């Protein structure tokens, strides 16, 4: 624990900024109901109200407080992105490690399925599935997780391939260890650094993807506040010189930058890259 703290103190400025950003986003997401001045879907004033002491960032097309929706949006978008990324890593990561360890037909089979999935453009695939099964949070998570799991599979398989040929894995195999031990104790700990780095990046991509889907109307459905759909709903205001609709987009951008700062630092720490 102490070591972790010292490590944090020695982190470069960019990483500290990144960590601070992530912590404040998480704080806002968790405590949204207490922080937001108004309810998420509550109509509190006229449409397109300007910034004022009453509505700090004005109101949207239906007269809902933009600040409150921005705060609730953090909660919805981040939690869905987080759950999706975790799911993608559990499925893709485990499949990748298993393919590398088992080799042979299992590896071939899994890899070809992944190739097929990756051959279809992600957005088209998501649009197709979502328009068939209908849009709700669960199907959104499952579809994006499946799509991202293919990328995670590729990476974890490639990294694990370099580990499974090492002698200590052979020693464990010859000892008669089962698959669970091989994955959990021998291979996974040695593939962790690139996977952690990828986790950060994947999280950003998922986040952007959800926002993109919401912007297209197939993501998180109204009236739930979400940064992607908030841009779409209020895009009209931009033509009147009001940059309020860009705020959710900036929120997305800022979090992405923060996560990337941290990922860079983790990668630097664990891969031994110098300079």
């Amino acid at each position, binding site marked *: 624990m102490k070591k972790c703290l010292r490590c944090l103190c020695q982190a470069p400025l960019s990483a500290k900024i990144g960590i601070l950003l992530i912590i404040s986003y998480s704080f806002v997401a968790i405590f949204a109901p207490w922080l937001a001045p108004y309810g998420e879907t509550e109509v509190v004033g006229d449409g397109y109200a300007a910034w004022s002491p009453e509505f700090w960032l004005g109101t949207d097309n239906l007269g809902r407080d933009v600040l409150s929706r921005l705060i609730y949006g953090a909660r919805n978008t981040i939690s869905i992105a987080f759950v999706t990324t975790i799911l993608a890593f559990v499925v893709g990561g485990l499949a990748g490690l298993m393919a590398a360890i088992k080799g042979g037909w299992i590896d071939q089979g899994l890899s070809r399925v992944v190739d097929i999935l990756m051959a279809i453009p992600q957005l088209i695939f998501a649009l197709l599935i979502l328009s068939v099964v209908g849009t709700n949070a669960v199907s959104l998570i499952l579809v994006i997780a499946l799509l991202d799991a293919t990328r995670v599979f590729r990476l974890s398989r490639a990294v694990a391939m370099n580990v499974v040929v090492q*002698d*200590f894995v052979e020693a464990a195999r010859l*000892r*008669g260890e089962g698959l669970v031990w091989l994955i959990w104790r021998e291979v996974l*700990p040695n593939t962790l650094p690139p996977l952690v780095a990828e986790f950060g990046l994947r999280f950003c991509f998922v986040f952007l993807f959800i926002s993109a889907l919401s912007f297209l109307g197939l993501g998180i459905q109204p009236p739930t506040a979400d940064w992607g759909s908030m841009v779409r709903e209020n895009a009209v205001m931009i033509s009147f010189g009001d940059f309020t609709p860009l705020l959710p987009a900036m929120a997305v951008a800022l979090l992405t930058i923060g996560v990337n700062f941290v990922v860079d630092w983790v990668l630097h720490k664990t891969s031994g890259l110098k300079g």
Partner: protein
Amino acid sequence: MSTEQEKHTDVLLEIRNLHLEGFSDEKWKPIVRGIDLTLHRGEVLGLIGESGAGKSTLGLAAMGYTKDGCRITQGSICFDGIDLINCSADELRQLHGLRIAYVAQSAAASFNPAHRLIDQHIETAIRNGGINRKQAKAEAVELYRILGLPDPENIGQRYPHQLSGGQLQRAMTAMALACHPDLIIFDEPTTALDVTTQIDVLAAIRNAVSRFHTAAIYITHDLAVVAQMADRIMVLRYGQLAEEAPTRKMLKAPENPYTLSLWAVRCFKSEAKPRPTAEAPLLSVENVSASYGKNPVLSDVSMQLFKGQTLAVIGESGSGKSTTARVITGLLQPDQGRVLFAGEVLPKDFRQRSKSQLQQIQMIYQHPDTALNPRQRINEIIGRPLEFYLGLKGAAKEQRIRELLTMIELDPEEFMYRRPSELSGGQKQRVCIARALAAEPELIICDEVTSALDQLVAEGILKLLKQVQDQLGVSYLFITHDVATVRAISDEVVIMQQGKVVDYGGREAIFKPPFKPYTDLLFSSEPQMDPDWLDTHLARQQAN
């Protein structure tokens, strides 16, 4: 006397009080500490020492070059009147390749695989030497001929992967000689080669260097090799000079205690035990043939190993030694033949073997770095077989780990909770031995366990293995390419060539003439600590 004097006035390279530091673990640590070195024109200087002694760093510094993460903190390097430390990058580039050349340990990794040899060879000459392509090519062919490469006219048209390791190393030397440099740095050029190949390369290098009157720094950890190549030897330890003397004097009468211990390394020898008559063999490999895909690698291999004995399998790379081990452990399924352990036939695939069958055969690997999981601590590594095979838990397990660590001569208090990265190469190999012993096996397969270690450390490992055998009565299948190791610890010897057993017998019988032809070639190729050995050997080869 006059030549002596001439030598003294003809200094090519002069290094004074050189200090070098390397950056590791977030701080600068000294690598080379106050080395003085003088090299005359046409002289070959041997640098020896164990890994980490600073040989290679010093060799590179002699070119005015430091690797990333290294820096020169003090001292001067003067090459033929040029101060290399204060040279600009451009000036250094003018010198490198043209007047100072470098031959690396792994020629295979140093050539660009995408270009033909001759194009790489003539590049420097054309860029700096002011000669045209045709002329450069003609000179390259001449050099290939001098270095004894087959088909010198056309070999340059090949790509690096089309040559063998020994040929590549000679091609690399030819490339270094391309501009007739004044100085060549050889950094362990034959370490990765088989003994029989090594001889050709050594002879070729020596011949070429003396022909062009080139000065050379020859870096190696093999005393016998340096004895053949160098006029003068410097022994380095911890970045400092341990001893310096002309080769013959150094070999005859080393003075420094460290040098003496290096010289004494090859003296360890165990008593060969006779084959027990009444017992059935512990391990019996019967007429095994195996292949990788369509390439046959083993044909009709048979050998027997008795309880408490050491069977050494020796051969060059590609002779099928390690493949035999893979068949015994069940990693590779043989096409024909079978493996019997304690009288019972082992299933071909290790996945079909029972836990106790797996427990009986343990492996120790060549590279201790990759044989230990870097993310596990020593107590986890040694404790796992105890838990897995013997069901030991808690205090009993810890007690046994302590016993094992004591047995391999590592202090349990100090090493129990360390990670592999916090150990030296020799210590790691000891942990590998402890892991194998933890399973309480009958047979341990040692696959080149000492090849990646320094000689002194390797000797310690051999002694430990011997001691363990006397104590516990385990059997070893000892795979190696080193004749000296076989002579030191084997009871019986199998000599393999191209997947076949060409000679097989007790140690005494194998090492006593008359030899079979291949055995003779293998044994006579092993460099001896005699500066005239190479000449004698070459003369003998020619007579045959």
